């Protein structure tokens, strides 16, 4: 870079018009390349995103036949959308073949031990409980903190985790407790040795559920209808 600065002062400058011409030609070439790349990848990317989300959704709410995506509006209303693009938070409602609501998958994120932990969990309005959980992305300590995505005992917590709606938020805050001391249905049995990470999961889910569960309950009719 220093060389370019020196070149500016040292050598006989080319004419400005020529420079502008060259720059515009190069920019045009670049523009064409970019636009070509963008348009040709747009579809595969959307498909990839959809596949990933669908996979996650079908894992947290198994047995679904069809699903509808709702975008949450700033006012608290929800609106069905197609595709997973856009920046509004979303609810993924999953229905069985008969159109009966099986559960609502929700994305949540928060800081874990090392970095951001993003998860997806499912809420069942019928059972008033969290019925599924999947770790989407985390950089927790391998072999220790990353057990929150793999440890079967830990994952079993989310087969049925009470999340009773109350006004406002939940009746009992969801909370991670030390391994083997779970006493209440709304408590998460932590992983021994990975206390910080498993606590983080509890905190992330609690924070999200405190907001989302009442919101789902409020819009339950619309969500139930969603399939049709």
């Amino acid at each position, binding site marked *: 870079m220093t060389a370019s600065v020196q070149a500016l002062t040292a*050598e006989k400058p080319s004419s400005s018009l020529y420079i502008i011409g*060259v720059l515009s030609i*190069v*920019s045009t070439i670049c523009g064409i*390349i970019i636009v070509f*790349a*963008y348009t040709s*990848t747009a579809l595969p990317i959307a498909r990839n*995103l959809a596949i990933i989300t669908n996979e996650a959704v079908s894992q947290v709410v198994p047995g679904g036949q069809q699903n509808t995506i709702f975008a949450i509006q700033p006012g608290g209303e929800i609106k069905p959308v197609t595709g997973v693009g856009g920046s509004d938070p979303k609810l993924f409602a999953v229905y069985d073949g008969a159109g009966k609501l099986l559960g609502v998958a929700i994305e949540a994120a928060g800081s874990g031990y090392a970095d951001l932990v993003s998860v997806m969990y499912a809420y069942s309005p019928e059972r008033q409980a969290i019925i599924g959980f999947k770790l989407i992305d985390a950089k927790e300590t391998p072999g220790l903190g990353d057990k929150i995505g793999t440890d079967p005992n830990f994952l079993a917590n989310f087969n049925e985790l009470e999340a009773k709606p109350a006004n406002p938020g939940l009746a009992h805050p969801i909370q991670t407790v030390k391994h083997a001391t779970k006493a209440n249905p709304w408590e998460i049995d932590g992983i021994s040795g990975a206390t910080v990470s498993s606590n983080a999961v509890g905190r992330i889910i609690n924070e999200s559920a405190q907001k989302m569960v009442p919101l789902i309950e409020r819009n339950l009719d619309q969500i139930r209808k969603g399939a049709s």
Partner: protein
Amino acid sequence: MSTAHQHQPSPPASPPEAAGPPASETFLNGLWKENPVFVQVLGTCPTMAITNSVRNALAMSVAVIFVLVCSNALVSLVRKTTPKEVRIAVFILIIATFVTVVDYAVKAVSIPIYQAMGPFIALIVVNCIILARAEAFAYKNGVFRSILDGFGMGFGFSIALLFMGSIREILGAGTLLGYPLFGANYQPWVIFLLPSGGFFTFAFWLLIFAWWRERKDKRAKATRPEAGQLEAAPQ
């Protein structure tokens, strides 16, 4: 002062001459003798950031080779028409273009790989290797040679990344490309997956290279005293 031996990761001072060595040498130079990572110590950030698994290292390598080859080619194509004053701007524009292409391409291929590489795909733009090759080679050489140079340097970069990635993955997870190597009871050395492990592994390879060079110099000195001294003089 003692600062003399500290290098500055700027473009190499002596680019190959236009009517330089044969094409095969242009290609092989980058692989080993002028390996951009281990010898010239360029592109250090992705070398450490994206090598905690061989898969990521491979993905990064492919991305960099693509950008390097394409930008070298395009820079070489426009080198006659590009005035000196704006050449850096043009280089950056060209590189950024291909990086954008790669950014979308990787996303189109696999989202998990895209997530694993985080901001480092975009940061290929400022990977010193690419700008250095554009400035030192492609701007002075023909298209064919520039493409060869791009491949050479790109493969050199890939070799470095794979060296890093395989050590880190094998020790850090006990796997290679995701396949377990040592059975279920193997105790992984987690540190190699962590940032500090990146530093240590890189330093380890630099030590190996320095040791190897020092031994070679010593041997050369033993057989040809004058030549050996000349080679040993820097550093």
